[in-house]
């Protein structure tokens, strides 16, 4: 069997093996990589860093564990930055698993020395309102009456008992909305309902697959977009809270190179087989 035939009939398990090696080996390497900051990522940071201490921000978690590899590092960096800068964080989700992912991110964030130094208190500095069904209608209703949509927090306590929710009627009481989005409902709905309708300032953190769509809203309808793990690493770089986003970029770099090599090899095999077929036809 010629090399060309081998390339054309390559068992896909070899491809899987190469990808597995390309993704896992860099996890054990410690190579410094320079993270270039895009204007979309800088937009999220600037939208957030300009807020005064005590300002309320919503962290809308519309993702699940499936997309956590890309989005969870953004949630952790956001919480670390917001809480250490004494911003008051209101967590909610239009996906059932979103607020649970936020709980996991909170546990990470609260362990950080910079956050622990300000000792944020539940109900005063942050609150988790939990999941609410109704998709974009929930956002629309929040524009007129947030306590009506979320009368209780994720643990079932009335929100009226928490100082952080004092005088929170609608988006006027919220300085910034950071939406962690992995699909529907997500950033599109937040832009259409909270942004366009109620003039809320929005930043988006999303998967690499969704980012090209959300870039269309930048810079007028969203202040910025964090796209995929690269966006997470950029945000970590900007906030100074380096975590998994930065650490896993090396794996992503290797995975991209492997993918490109496969495309090149696949095309070499394709053109060589086409040439052989044509040569065969001419000879016949």
């Amino acid at each position, binding site marked *: 069997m010629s090399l060309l035939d081998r390339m054309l009939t*390559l068992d*896909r398990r070899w*491809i*899987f093996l*190469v*990808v*597995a090696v390309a*993704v896992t080996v860099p996890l054990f390497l410690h190579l410094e*990589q*320079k*993270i*270039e900051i*895009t*204007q979309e990522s800088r937009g999220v940071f600037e939208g957030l860093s300009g807020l005064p201490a005590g300002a309320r921000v919503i962290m809308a978690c519309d993702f*699940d*564990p*499936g*997309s*956590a*590899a890309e989005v969870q590092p953004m949630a952790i960096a956001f919480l670390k930055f917001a809480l250490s800068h004494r911003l008051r964080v209101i967590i909610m989700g239009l996906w059932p698993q979103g607020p*649970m992912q936020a*709980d*996991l991110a909170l*546990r990470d964030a609260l362990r950080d020395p910079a956050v622990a130094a300000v000792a944020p208190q539940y109900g005063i500095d942050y609150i988790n309102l939990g999941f*609410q*069904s*109704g*998709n974009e*209608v*929930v956002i*629309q*209703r929040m524009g*007129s009456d947030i306590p*009506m*949509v979320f009368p209780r927090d*994720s*643990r*079932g306590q009335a929100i009226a008992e928490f100082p952080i929710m004092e005088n929170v009627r609608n988006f006027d009481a919220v300085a910034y909305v950071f939406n962690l989005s992995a699909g529907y409902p997500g950033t599109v709905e937040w832009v259409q309902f909270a942004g366009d*309708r109620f003039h809320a300032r929005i930043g988006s953190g999303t998967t*690499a697959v969704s980012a*090209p*769509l959300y*870039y*269309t809203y930048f810079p007028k309808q969203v202040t910025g977009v964090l796209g*995929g793990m*690269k966006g997470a690493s950029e945000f970590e770089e900007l906030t100074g809270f380096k975590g998994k986003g930065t650490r896993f*970029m090396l794996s992503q*770099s290797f*995975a*991209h*190179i*492997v*993918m*490109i090599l*496969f*495309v090149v*090899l*696949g*095309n070499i095999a*394709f053109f060589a087989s086409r040439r052989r077929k044509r040569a065969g036809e001419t000879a016949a």
Partner: protein
Amino acid sequence: MKRRIPLLLTTLVGVIFVVQFFVPHKPFSDMQGLLSDWVQIIAAFAIWLGALNLMRVSAENVQRRERNWPYAAIIIASFLAISVVGFFFSGGTHFQDPGTPFDWMYQNVYNPLSATMFAMLAFYVASASYRAFRARNREATLLLLAGFLVMLGRVPVGDKLSGFLPEGYRLSNLADLIMNIPNKAGQRAIMIGIALGIVSTSLRLILGIEKSHLGGEG
């Protein structure tokens, strides 16, 4: 009557939502609030309906020993396990609190399984890129080149490889250019097209021309 009342309701609700968007004052703002609350309640019931329907379909699959019935049995067992753990084994605390069995299952079973499903995409994409991503014609070649530049330009190694080029002409700059100009233009065109389609379909629904949502023909 069975069709007229739902049609009338669709028209009424549609008109209220359109009017309140342009006139956000009483009584329309109150109507919008009331209807939004109803949507949330219906959506909450729909979640239960979906879960119960999944159980019913899975139970039928197991009972009739249909193809892949063991998967249906796993669905039922998983559903019952997490429900029972969440409802009855929280030890007096909220089921989502750290340290509860539900929290343990979420972190150690559901979370890794769900992440694994998504991570497998990387392997399939690599395999597909080897077999299907071919420069067969001009359009495919353009797509290939764009993908090439964006994939390299969006990771730090891209700038390492093109570090010899002057600032502004490196792979990351090219990737930004592709994302900000052709990508945005194409995506916006698609979004405007979709929005126009939604407007026309909504109008057909409100005016009672489109009836497919009632189960009949449109």
